């Protein structure tokens, strides 16, 4: 995983903190973080929802604790401390899932434990919760957790509908539909994330092109830089 967190903008309003994780800084689609759990559990919509909810829970709780204790955590051992806090809440989430939805818990298997190594959770602690007050940190965690869940559903819904012909276990495709089994298998997950990233790239390129054409009409070009020889002469 990568610990290099891109913080392109620091929103000032609370609503900005909450909403930027949903789309513009979506942890999966824009920052490509947390992919392991995103791909492994999205072969069914129910698993995607459970994984999204569990990750959001862990993210919000550990952000609240890290933000509360941010003045007392020594800088040198901060990462270890964050991981211990995250692992504690993970144990809680694991037990809650096992008690409430045992079938889903079984289907997700070891990937629940792997929330600990999800880059999104650790990344938000390092980039946001360790510097900001509790209220904002919780909002930021909530936004990122929801953004993660949205990305999981964007993958989980097509994979279950195409791969199995069902949605949350109910048949939605016509009887004559032949399920694309490959979508349920690992290659389907990789194809799906590849396709989603293609769409995200296309969206980005279009936005850039629009901004550039707008900028060209407004800004006048700066005076041209003198050529190399001319500058040489000026120095002499």
């Amino acid at each position, binding site marked *: *995983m*990568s*610990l290099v967190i891109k913080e392109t903008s620091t929103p000032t309003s609370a609503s900005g903190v909450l909403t930027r994780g949903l789309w513009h800084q979506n942890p999966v689609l824009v920052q*490509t*973080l947390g*992919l*392991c759990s995103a*791909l*492994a559990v999205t072969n069914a919509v129910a698993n995607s929802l459970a994984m999204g909810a569990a990750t959001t829970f862990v993210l919000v709780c550990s952000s609240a604790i890290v933000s509360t204790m941010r003045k007392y955590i020594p800088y040198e051992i901060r*990462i*270890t401390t964050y*991981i*211990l806090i995250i*692992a*504690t809440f*993970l*144990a809680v989430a*694991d*037990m809650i899932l096992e008690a409430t939805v045992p079938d889903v818990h079984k289907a997700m*298997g*070891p990937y629940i*434990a*792997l929330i*600990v*190594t*999800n*880059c999104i959770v*650790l990344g938000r602690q390092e980039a946001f919760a360790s510097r900001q007050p509790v209220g904002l940190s919780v909002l930021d965690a909530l936004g990122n957790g929801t953004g993660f869940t949205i990305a999981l559903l964007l993958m989980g819904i097509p994979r279950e509908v195409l791969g199995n012909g069902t949605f949350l276990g109910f048949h939605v495709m016509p009887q004559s539909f032949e399920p694309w089994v*490959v979508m349920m*298998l*690992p*290659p389907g*997950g*990789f*194809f799906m*994330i*590849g396709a989603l*990233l*293609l769409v*995200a*790239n*296309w969206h980005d*390129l279009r936005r850039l092109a629009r901004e550039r054409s707008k900028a060209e009409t407004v800004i006048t070009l700066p005076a041209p830089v003198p050529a190399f020889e001319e500058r040489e002469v000026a120095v002499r």
Partner: protein
Amino acid sequence: MTDLFWIFFSAAIVTNFVLVYFLGLCPVIGVTNKSVTGLRLGLATTFVMVLASLAAWILNRFVLVNAPYLRVIAFIVAIASVVQIVELFIRKVSPGLYRELGIFLPLIASNSQVLGLTIFQTNRGYTLPQGLMFAIGGGLGITAVLAMVGSIRERLEFAPIPAIARGPALVFMIVAALSLVFMGFAGMGTV
């Protein structure tokens, strides 16, 4: 003996950590610009995995008998310590290798492959030799995938790729194709 061989074979090929279990995708995107870097990181990961497997076995056998709910916390601390020791060791013994691995070495600590290995090993109740075999097989499987994706990306360096397919999107398409190839092994070995 055949049992150990099949564990090795399944971990390396049939249920490859990257292509089938989706573990450790960040290094696949991050360090496969060149096949050599991928190869080195894969071997370092294998080394850490073997030590982590040993540590997890000791923890399971002697420490966590009555407290299975503390597993993840105990494993993650053990893995972080192992990585720290390996880092000190490599810095002392081979400063050149240490400089080349650079930032990747500490990042192995937060790598889902190593934690995934210890959890799979615990869930399946592997004995010590079985666990070590699982670690070696899994690590070499990861190394092979990192090297393969790296070589494919080297070939694609000068190909006319459309702008929307640059970056991670293209890497995932490559990995999807590789994963499809590895599906051919499905059904062999033990799971």
